[in-house]
């Protein structure tokens, strides 16, 4: 086996509070985007682990893979979206006979490393997140966005809608840069202005207006007459009637206003609420390009130290 890939994600609690790598972007999570990108390489082993899980379990996974014959391991600490050309990265790593190659963009490290089998076997207890003197730097010049804040998330949404990055909306193009998932319910009076995205099972009631650069993720319900402008509504969010949402991200009852850089709870004001999630739904189960009953990717998630082993 040539290549294994270990993707380390933020714990769900942290991700929901701070952003954003767990939030879906036009119907698909950033994790999905990374996993699909990795899968195009034909990886022999792929595992997704929680960052809160002990480092020992991650190391054990990598050591097991190395002992099992995996030559190189791609380690991705999820915190950004970047369209890294993995084939080129592997070529660079191979040609330089590097032990560890770390990927940088113009801002700094992207949290993507390629580790050689020998390095893992020689130093299994080494902290895989710390650069070593043996690591080489791969400068990535393509598209990348840090997802540590709602503004990073919004940038990615707007870039995706404008076609400035490779993310394809999970829906059907119903007009010029207007993407709608077939399961969305949209009243005929709704105005869709400019590039926008309406996700699976979303409900847009009469008089709603969705402005340029806006996205409505799955199972959202926008009540009568509410307007969205350059804003994103995250899954399972209900919005009250007659609101004007601008330059914001709303996740359940939490509004992040990017212009004023404030976070406001709308629940106590009765302006928003968290809807009951649709049973057995995940963004991957309704990807249009796949069988609607099957996940697009088969991944295993290890969350706690009690897990006996990370499956390959």
């Amino acid at each position, binding site marked *: 086996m040539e290549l294994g890939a270990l993707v380390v994600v933020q714990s769900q609690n942290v991700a929901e509070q701070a952003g954003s790598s767990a939030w879906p972007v036009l119907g698909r999570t950033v994790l999905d985007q990374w996993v699909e990108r990795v899968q195009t390489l034909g990886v022999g082993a792929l595992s997704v682990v929680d960052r809160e899980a002990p480092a020992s379990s991650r190391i054990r996974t990598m050591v097991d893979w190395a002992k099992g014959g995996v030559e190189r391991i791609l380690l991705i600490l999820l915190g950004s979206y970047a369209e890294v050309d993995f084939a080129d990265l592997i070529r660079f790593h191979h040609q330089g006979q590097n032990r560890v190659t770390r990927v940088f963009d113009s801002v700094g490290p992207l949290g993507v490393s390629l580790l050689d089998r020998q390095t893992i076997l020689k130093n299994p207890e080494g902290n895989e997140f710390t650069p070593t003197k043996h690591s080489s730097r791969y400068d990535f010049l393509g598209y990348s966005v840090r997802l540590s804040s709602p503004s990073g998330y919004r940038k990615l949404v707007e870039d995706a809608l404008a076609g400035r990055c490779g993310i394809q909306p999970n829906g059907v193009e119903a007009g010029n840069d207007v993407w709608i998932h077939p399961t969305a319910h949209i009243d005929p009076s709704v105005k869709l202005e400019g590039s926008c995205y309406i996700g699976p099972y979303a409900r847009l009631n009469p008089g709603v207006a969705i402005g340029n650069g806006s996205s409505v993720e799955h199972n959202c319900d926008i009540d009568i007459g509410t307007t969205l402008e350059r804003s994103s509504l995250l899954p399972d969010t209900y919005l009250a009637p007659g609101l*004007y949402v601008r330059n*914001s991200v709303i996740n359940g009852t939490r509004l992040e206003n990017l212009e*004023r850089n*404030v*976070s406001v709870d*709308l629940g*106590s*004001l*009765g302006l928003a609420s968290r809807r009951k999630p649709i049973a057995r739904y995940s963004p991957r189960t309704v990807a249009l390009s796949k069988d609607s009953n099957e996940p697009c990717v088969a991944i295993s998630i290890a969350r706690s130290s009690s897990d006996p082993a990370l499956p390959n």
Partner: protein
Amino acid sequence: MTQNGPVVVKQLPESGAKYRRKQFLAEVKQLARQSYRPQLIVDLPSKKIGPDTLDLLLSCVEQVERSEGRVSVAGASPEVAAILELTQLTSVVNVFPSVSEAVGIEGAYPFDAPDSDDSQHMAA
């Protein structure tokens, strides 16, 4: 030539203070009855507002507009300003960071004839 009425600064009661809020609205009604084109500047006391605050603000607007006046909100924190924009109250009230800025915009000068502990009249 148009002429503005009196400029009145009043501090909005805290959320939940029912009696004080009732009294506040009564004073606003009286202002609206007794003056033409009053400029009511509502000074927000805290960083957060409740649903009753939004109701009270709307009631103020309703009363003051009957006399062709205008309501301004002063001392709004960024959080409150975000809520006022979200609820589209900014289409019926002006929002200012402070009372002095609200008064400055209204073109008024201080007039030291307060008629209660928490309100202040200014000439227009």
